């Protein structure tokens, strides 16, 4: 596939926008979270960090809204922010794709940003992350660290976003060790988001992988990842976290020790840069991909478990940035 085709042309957008003149008047930024909402110690909190930074550094007035537990009111939240005079407005999560598109058509005078989904209107900026690239690095690290030549991947929900993680990871492992074995398991089908809230299922799935001989399991399963870490701790093996630096967000010391690294996705950077660009007069209609080149994704080094792989990882990063390696977004 060519999921990352937008990468190169757009990744320079933030810096371009930042240089323009900032408009006068109060900056009122609205943000609508994905299910889970603020305080999830992950994706949403990362977005919020970007928002707070905008408040601190750009003097923005901010308002953040969480959707209902089943996410039925996403579109309403966007409209409510728009009606209350917020501009720009950011939707966190690809699930806002359709709703942002409609809201953007309804409110052409307002700028929208959407995390994890491509721009789909004149006044929408897609804030994309090259998860597959970060996952590729996770794959490289896993392959190098694995003694059994056997690693695993646990996905929360079998949707295309999580499949990007799987695709990059598998490619990274295979590129490093051709004959390595990779177990893949998703917890729930697409549309059933309970897979992000099922640590017990994550634990059972990861347990099986460790029992079969895998020694490193990468998870992209939200709160279910907790189960993966526990399985790793019980089996005295390793795991790779996702989204934020989980070695820091997870507070249990026994679990921290199992988290070899985490694939970080800098939603905070994306959100902040988008707001900054808006202040500089940036217009939507294009995508910004936060990839390895702009440090939009990457591996966490807390704990120092992968410090010895720095050379190999830098090399892989180099190749991806230079375009020598293209990481596919589809398994």
């Amino acid at each position, binding site marked *: 596939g060519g999921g990352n085709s937008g990468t190169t042309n757009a990744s320079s957008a933030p810096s371009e926008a930042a240089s323009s003149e900032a408009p006068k008047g109060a900056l009122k930024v609205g943000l609508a979270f994905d299910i889970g*909402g603020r*305080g999830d110690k992950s994706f949403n909190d990362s977005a919020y960090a970007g928002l707070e930074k905008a408040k601190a550094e750009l003097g923005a007035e901010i308002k953040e809204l969480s959707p209902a*537990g089943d996410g039925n009111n996403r579109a309403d939240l966007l409209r409510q922010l728009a009606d209350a005079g917020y501009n720009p407005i950011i939707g966190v999560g690809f699930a806002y794709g359709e709703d942002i598109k409609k809201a953007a058509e309804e409110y052409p005078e307002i700028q929208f940003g959407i995390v994890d989904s491509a721009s789909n209107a004149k006044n929408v900026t897609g804030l994309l992350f090259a998860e597959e690239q970060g996952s590729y690095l996770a794959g490289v690290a896993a392959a190098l660290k694995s003694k059994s030549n056997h690693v695993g991947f646990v996905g929360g929900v079998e949707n295309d976003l999580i499949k990007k993680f799987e695709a990059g990871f598998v490619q990274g492992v295979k590129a490093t060790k051709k004959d390595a074995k990779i177990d893949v398991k998703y917890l729930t089908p697409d549309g059933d988001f*309970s897979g992000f809230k099922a640590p017990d299922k994550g634990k059972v799935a990861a347990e*099986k992988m460790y*029992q079969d001989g895998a020694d490193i399991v990468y998870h992209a399963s939200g*709160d279910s990842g907790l189960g993966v870490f*526990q399985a790793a701790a019980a089996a005295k093996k390793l795991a790779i976290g996702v989204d934020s630096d989980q070695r820091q967000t997870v507070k249990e010391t026994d679990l921290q020790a199992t988290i070899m690294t985490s694939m970080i996705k800098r939603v905070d950077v994306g959100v902040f840069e988008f707001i900054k660009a808006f202040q500089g007069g940036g217009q939507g209609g294009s995508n910004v991909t936060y990839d390895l080149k702009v440090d939009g994704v990457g591996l966490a080094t807390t704990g120092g478990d992968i410090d010895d792989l720095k050379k190999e990882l830098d090399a892989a990063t180099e190749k991806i940035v230079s375009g020598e390696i293209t990481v596919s977004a589809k398994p």
Partner: protein
Amino acid sequence: MTRTRKYHLTLIGIAALIAVVSLVRMISGQNDLTSSGTFAAALALAVPIGLAGLGGLWAERAGVVNIGLEGMMVLGTWFAGWAGYQWGFMAALVAGVAAGAIGGLIHAIATVGFGVDHIISGVAINLLGPGVTRFLSEVLYKEGTGASALGAGITTSPALSTKAPEISLPILSSGPNLLGDLESTHWFLISDVAGVLGGLTRNVNLLAIVAVALVPLTFFVLWRTAFGLRLRSVGENPWAAESLGVSVYTLKYVAVVISGAFAGLGGTFLVFFVSKYVEGQTQGRGFIGLASMIFGNWRPGGLAAGATLFGYADGLQLRSKGAVTTIFLFGAVLLLVYLAVKVRKIVRSSGPVEIAGTGAKEYTTMAAAAAGAVVLIWLWMVIDKLPDEFVYITPHVLTLLVLLAASQRLRMPKADGVRYRRGEQH
């Protein structure tokens, strides 16, 4: 007498089942069918379902339908997480059980006290459980709180400060681990038994043992004590019970509160399993527990079988896709066994009456069974990889199939779901 025979029959049945599964394992090479890992997972996944089911059993035996188990379980998870991170696992246990019991009390007040329809009150509790817990998280786990510093978030509590002990059987399952060695030989039957036993005796959470013990305990209390007799009489005919001086309201209250406590215990087990509260971690197990109770004909043994079946299928599904497809093979073998039994019976007793009376229908079912077996074997050979969506639903479909086969013999308590008012009998 009859009881011993039933008991023996059950044992023989289980042995036969393991033999068939072992056979299927040998044919298909799917060792996960009887691996200790699968059974450990099955146990862990079955326990919360079984506890919810026991909760349902207690309530329904006293005549109160409890569809609010899910909500009570949610309350159990949250409070177990909240107390557990501060004061350890014993506190988690107490808080989880108490929270579930309070959910039960609300249900009891509505249904027993006010005579509200049982389903409706349960639905309201299912709304309230997640709402209240989310609210509590928003208040107590928000940024800047001490809990937040300990790793709490809006969707999770901090980890339990102490964990419930896990227990292994010495020599057999730990240390020399004889069962593990046997299992890895993959011998017919022997490895399977070793796998099953190993899975059920290695690193078992204390609460799982408690939960399993609660099944016979429930049977004992409900069927062997005076209290149990009174409780069941209330579910069968509350007016009769009332006329004999049994305090119907009190018993119903007690039963429903215990029911909620069981659901809360199930929630606590979920928290123990991953050592913290995670929003949404009950995953509809309250409903599945209710289903397993109906499946088990409102009896503890049957309920445990239902929960085990579900846990097993779910564990298998999570662990190995390949093993799940062998369910086709398993079904085929079962049908063939059924056919063999039928044929033998007909050959042996060729009484003309029986054949005349019931012949046609019998032959039709036999033909259907044979055709089914052929189709299943064909499916097993053709579909080596089912689409994932079909793998996820294996437990549910299995439950439906078993119900289709066995459901007509079910018998629920006669006054189950009936609104009872003292002194009113139309």
